């Protein structure tokens, strides 16, 4: 059995006491006396330390997995916070409903989706997960159960969306699904040459395509800097069920921890080059199942183990429109110079909208996600350098992916943190929160 109570990046390591929360009465009543307080734990899909509470208590909500009500006219679902997006997909796609927003994994809980205010390939159209949440049932450490919505406990509602689990225990939530006619997507994959081409394609596509995203070949240099595959797609229109494409779900597993990371200069170069040239034509169209469209990595259980026992860092930042292009180029050049390639680079232009949560990450601009094997100080220095670029550009780094940003960077990226602080439940804390707030700046 793999260790359950760790973050997806498997860095940093942490040890916890565990309390299973199946019913509201299971919440211990003296949390404020608990050293380091308590933190809700969903399914451990955030990468850094915002789902960890080293030396403290984790509140495991996986048995809070009940669906409470579904309105088949409006598509509004109310469920407990431990329900996995995967369960909603399994149950609701056959009935013609799909999550309004989904990130690149379906193995996260509804509570986690709210607490990190996750976004997906359709951000430019539909915003983040929190934009579709109507009500949240919140249990505070003093035993109070509050209903938070745009009309009730409004400020606490805004703090809880993207509130990284610190405002109390999310018992349940009510949110909208969107109608679909089948579980398939019409997807086009276009090979493009560099960062400028990406922005060109993105601005051409965002009007007509609900889902857009690019995969980057981080090996590209010079005039090829930022080259990659641009993917754009829409929900497939009505297809008679008899003509649905075949979908065989094949589940693989990474069964062991290799003693060191399998991601190195050689494997990276080979993979990236092969992937970039995987299609012969410049543009290719396909009708694909949602599993291949959104969740290719979910097909490999424990894929994070490929990085070995030291784990890896995911780095995701957003850069405002004006400075975005230059900032992204600078980061990509930095990767090339450092010789620490990124296995998965993802680039997307966010929509021009205000996020619903106080600490939400999405904001107008373009977002770049990269991951790096943990090579200790070398990697930390590189990411610190990226933080400087992001700060100068007026951007931000995504908390859900972070394990190392400095307190001063955090305060710079999230100046509203002081306001947020007043909504933090006195019985709740996390490794992340202590790391970015307890040092004096």
């Amino acid at each position, binding site marked *: 059995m793999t260790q359950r109570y760790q973050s997806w990046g498997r860095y940093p390591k942490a040890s916890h006491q565990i309390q299973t929360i199946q019913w509201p009465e299971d919440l211990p009543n003296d949390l404020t006396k608990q050293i380091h307080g308590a933190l809700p734990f969903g399914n451990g899909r955030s990468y850094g330390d915002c789902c960890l509470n080293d030396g403290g208590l984790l509140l495991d909500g996986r*048995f809070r997995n*009940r669906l409470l009500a579904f309105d088949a006219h409006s598509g509004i679902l109310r469920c407990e916070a431990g329900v996995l997006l995967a369960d909603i997909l399994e149950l609701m796609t056959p009935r013609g409903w799909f999550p309004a927003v989904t990130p690149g994994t379906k193995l996260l809980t509804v509570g986690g989706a709210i607490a990190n205010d996750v976004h997906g390939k359709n951000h430019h159209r539909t915003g983040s997960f929190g934009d579709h949440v109507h009500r949240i049932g919140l249990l505070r450490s003093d035993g109070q159960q509050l209903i938070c919505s745009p009309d009730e406990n409004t400020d606490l509602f805004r703090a809880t969306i993207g509130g990284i689990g610190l405002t109390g225990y999310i018992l349940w939530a009510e949110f909208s699904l969107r109608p679909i006619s089948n579980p398939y997507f019409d997807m086009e994959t276009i090979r493009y040459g560099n960062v400028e081409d990406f922005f060109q394609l993105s601005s051409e596509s965002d009007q007509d395509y609900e889902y857009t995203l690019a995969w980057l070949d981080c090996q590209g240099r010079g005039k090829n800097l930022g080259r990659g595959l641009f993917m754009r797609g829409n929900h497939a229109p009505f297809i008679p069920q008899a003509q649905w494409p075949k979908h065989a779900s094949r589940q693989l597993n990474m069964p062991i921890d290799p003693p060191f990371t399998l991601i190195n200069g050689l494997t990276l170069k080979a993979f990236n080059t092969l992937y970039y040239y995987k299609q012969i034509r410049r543009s290719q169209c396909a009708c694909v199942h949602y599993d291949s469209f959104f969740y290719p990595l979910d097909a490999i259980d424990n894929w994070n183990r490929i990085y070995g026992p030291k784990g890896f860092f995911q780095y995701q930042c957003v850069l405002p429109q004006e400075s975005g292009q230059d900032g992204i180029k600078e980061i990509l050049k930095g990767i090339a110079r450092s010789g620490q390639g990124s296995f998965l680079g993802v680039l997307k232009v966010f929509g021009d909208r205000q996020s619903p949560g106080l600490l939400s990450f999405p904001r107008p601009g373009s977002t770049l996600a990269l991951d790096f094997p943990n090579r200790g100080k070398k990697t930390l220095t590189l990411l610190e350098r990226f933080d400087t670029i992001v700060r100068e550009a007026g951007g931000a780094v995504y908390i859900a992916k972070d394990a190392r940003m400095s307190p001063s960077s955090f305060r710079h990226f999230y100046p509203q943190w002081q306001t947020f602080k007043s909504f933090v439940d006195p019985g709740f804390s996390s490794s992340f929160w202590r790391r970015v707030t307890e040092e004096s700046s």
Partner: protein
Amino acid sequence: MRKILIIGATSAIAQAVAHRYAQQGHALFLTGRDPERVATIAADLRVRGAVQVESATLDANQIETHQTVLDHAITAMGSIDTVLIAHGVLNDQQTCQASVEDTLDAFQTNALSAIALLTLLANYMEHNAIKGTLAVISSVAGDRGRQSNYVYGAAKAAKSTFLAGLRNRLHSAGIHVLTIKPGFVDTPMTAHLKKGLLWAQPDDVAAGIVKSIEKRRDCVYLPGFWWLIMTIIRAIPESLFKRLTL
């Protein structure tokens, strides 16, 4: 379509079994001690697609209430053709050793209450010529008494032996009796125990239960590898076994 009665519906394994039946569009009648929790689970099963979900409050240890609750279930559902008895408690061995009362309580919950219910349900199915299923969660712990949990184990052994006899009796009536012997299952009941390689998830055990009901199996170890482990444990001569720390 099955008409399923679940005793101890708030148990993690029972909930996982109920999820599967609800998703297949069966009808369910739930019982449990806490009406609010049972109502939450009933709501969940409705959303998941159960055609009908009814419920009643039942403390299985209140044996005098059994008949009333069963009559209520049969009336509400029209009839019952599948039963899952899932209630139980993982009592603390040390506490039981020190107290006759606690030992007898553990027997009451883990054996006698189920035996009482099964007696009524067996007669109901037999009298009404229902060729249904009586599925009961026992435990690998019932296969051999060990110092670390023999009170729990002995109660489960009583259940298993009772079921073997019942199966023998009801075979000619076409009634299926299933003894379910889960190993270590990672549920809120076992949250305080340290987990290792042998631990299974409730949903995996539930999949095995649903399959065993479908295939009308007699006795199943879940996951299946426990059959091998328990065969070895049962084969150890008592003269040696009594010296082991198990």
